[in-house]
């Protein structure tokens, strides 16, 4: 019953619509970026509209993987933080936490239900983003084999070639993998939301912490800190886009991310179960 209650609240909150529109808009902007990139760089001298390279390299799947890369690294963590932060802090700010706690509901039940709703929302947002990215890629450019080359984005350390069907399987696996990546910012935000009494603060703090840790994980100077930062493992899903997936590495990174998430959740639960409602 509580789960249905939370799902109804979420569906009526407008957050799913805002998230869907924002994610779709982001993908459209990405497409425009790809479209104008070649024009700008070559002064409009290329036949192919989207990048320097020819159609044998770039297709709808390449667009989808790059869009997904940016989405998982930059946009979806914000939505993960919004969802995590708005679960408990929003109830506290609105005073509705009193309404819930004034019913025979245990704190663990409230906590777990809210977490489940946030995780479901996150998984759906990631799936939606991936699906729309693939769909836009298909409609605007068309699919084909997926070729990846080493570059500044470090998508791969050596050239990869996946057939279209292999690539689609990799995309299907990337969905839960990226969801695991984004669980960390979500649970971090959940933790912050048990401390602060305003959802805006919870989201702001979580996003700030995520961005700082993301930058630290990317800067060579802080390389010794990388094993201790969840942002260091956030791109592990890229390992699925190899012709020979190195599963031990992928699973190890997924487990590390889950361990970070569990750690944040344990702290959040400890705080929520003991806190007073002033």
């Amino acid at each position, binding site marked *: *019953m509580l789960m249905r*209650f939370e799902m*109804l*609240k979420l569906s009526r909150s407008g957050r799913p619509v805002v998230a869907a529109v924002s994610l779709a808009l982001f993908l459209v902007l990405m497409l425009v970026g790809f479209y104008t990139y070649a024009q700008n760089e070559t002064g409009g001298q290329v036949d192919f509209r989207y990048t320097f390279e020819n159609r044998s390299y770039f297709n709808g799947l390449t667009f989808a993987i790059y869009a997904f890369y940016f989405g998982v690294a930059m946009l979806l963590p914000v939505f993960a933080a919004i969802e995590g932060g708005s679960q408990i802090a929003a109830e506290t700010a*609105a*005073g*509705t936490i009193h309404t819930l*706690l004034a019913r*025979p*509901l245990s704190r663990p039940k409230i906590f777990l239900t809210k977490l489940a709703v946030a995780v479901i929302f996150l998984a759906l947002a990631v799936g939606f983003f991936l699906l729309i990215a693939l769909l836009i890629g298909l409609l605007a450019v068309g699919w084909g084999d997926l070729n990846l080359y080493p570059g500044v984005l470090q998508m791969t350390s050596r050239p990869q070639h996946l057939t279209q069907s292999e690539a689609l399987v990799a995309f299907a696996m990337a969905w839960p993998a990226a969801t695991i990546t984004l669980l960390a910012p979500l649970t971090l935000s959940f933790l912050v939301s048990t401390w602060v009494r305003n959802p805006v603060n919870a989201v702001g703090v979580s996003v700030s912490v995520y961005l700082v840790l993301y930058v630290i994980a990317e800067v060579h100077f802080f390389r010794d800190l990388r094993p201790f930062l969840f942002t260091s493992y956030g791109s592990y899903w890229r390992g699925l886009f190899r012709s020979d997936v190195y599963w031990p590495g992928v699973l190890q990174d997924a487990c590390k991310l889950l361990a970070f998430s569990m750690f944040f959740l344990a702290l959040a639960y400890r705080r929520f179960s003991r806190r007073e409602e002033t």
Partner: protein
Amino acid sequence: MNHAILEVDGAVRRFGKRIALAGVSLNLDSRKILALVGPNGSGKTTLLKILAGFLKPTSGCVRVFGMDPFAFRARVMVDARFAFAPPAWYPQLTARETLTFLVGIGNGAVDRTDRARISHVLDSVGLLERADDRVRVFSFGMRQRLALAQAILPTPKLLVLDEPTDGLDPLAILELRAVLRRLRDEHGVAILLSSHLMTEVEHLVDTMAVLHEGSLIFNGPPTELLRDGQCLRLALDGTTDVVARTIALMREEGVVVAHQENGYVTMPVGSITLAHAGKLADRCGAVLKEFHEQRPTLEAALLDRLRTARERPPSSSGSTTPSRTDEC
């Protein structure tokens, strides 16, 4: 073992250096209505939140149905309903959805009987026609009515209402009074309400507890507070000397004169009979023009109490520095 529905024994609550509750003790049994009264910041809401298990007392013992409400909040809430002010609702849900889910959360499911009861309760608080409107369009008064509806659905053993008349029109206040009386008399519900409306308290409650700066300065039936505020008022006519002589004579006779000004004398009820006062006035050459018992309104009696409490030195108003103990 029989417990009072609600037992508070020496409850202290501190927020940093500030003492919000300074050793409050009170009980509430079934079939009783207790009003918690006091100025803003006197500790009413803090006490209600402690009873709801939202806050822990710094020291002292609080039991609801014989249980520590902070440790066993979910179990306490099986038979207790709380409605805090201001009422907080989910604006995106309708009144009916809100009640359906709140009932379902307690029961695990909502059956046809529950749905019929929800409609009945919505009707009884005057919200049936707006039952399928989202709460976001509700006025404050309508939200307050919804708070009352959820508080009596299903009928609890303990009902705690924080400022239940806020935002209600006079007719709704009358209806609320009738509902609360019915709950007490027909269902044996113990009701605790905090209120600023003294007319409400006077007509409805069995006991009132007055809080001032965290201390309980009165705990008893409203009639007792009124009785304490009653006094005998005499008016003496005559020259200043004559009046002064009459008052002096009364004092010699053992009468406690509380106040005197311009020939008007006040004293505790029963201090002197009309015949005796007349005789003493006559003996001194004064004329007894008025002799009547002055009955204050409950509000005046309460204000008088609060004024007295304010004038008392801090040590006697309970603002000591309590330490944490386990008194339960």
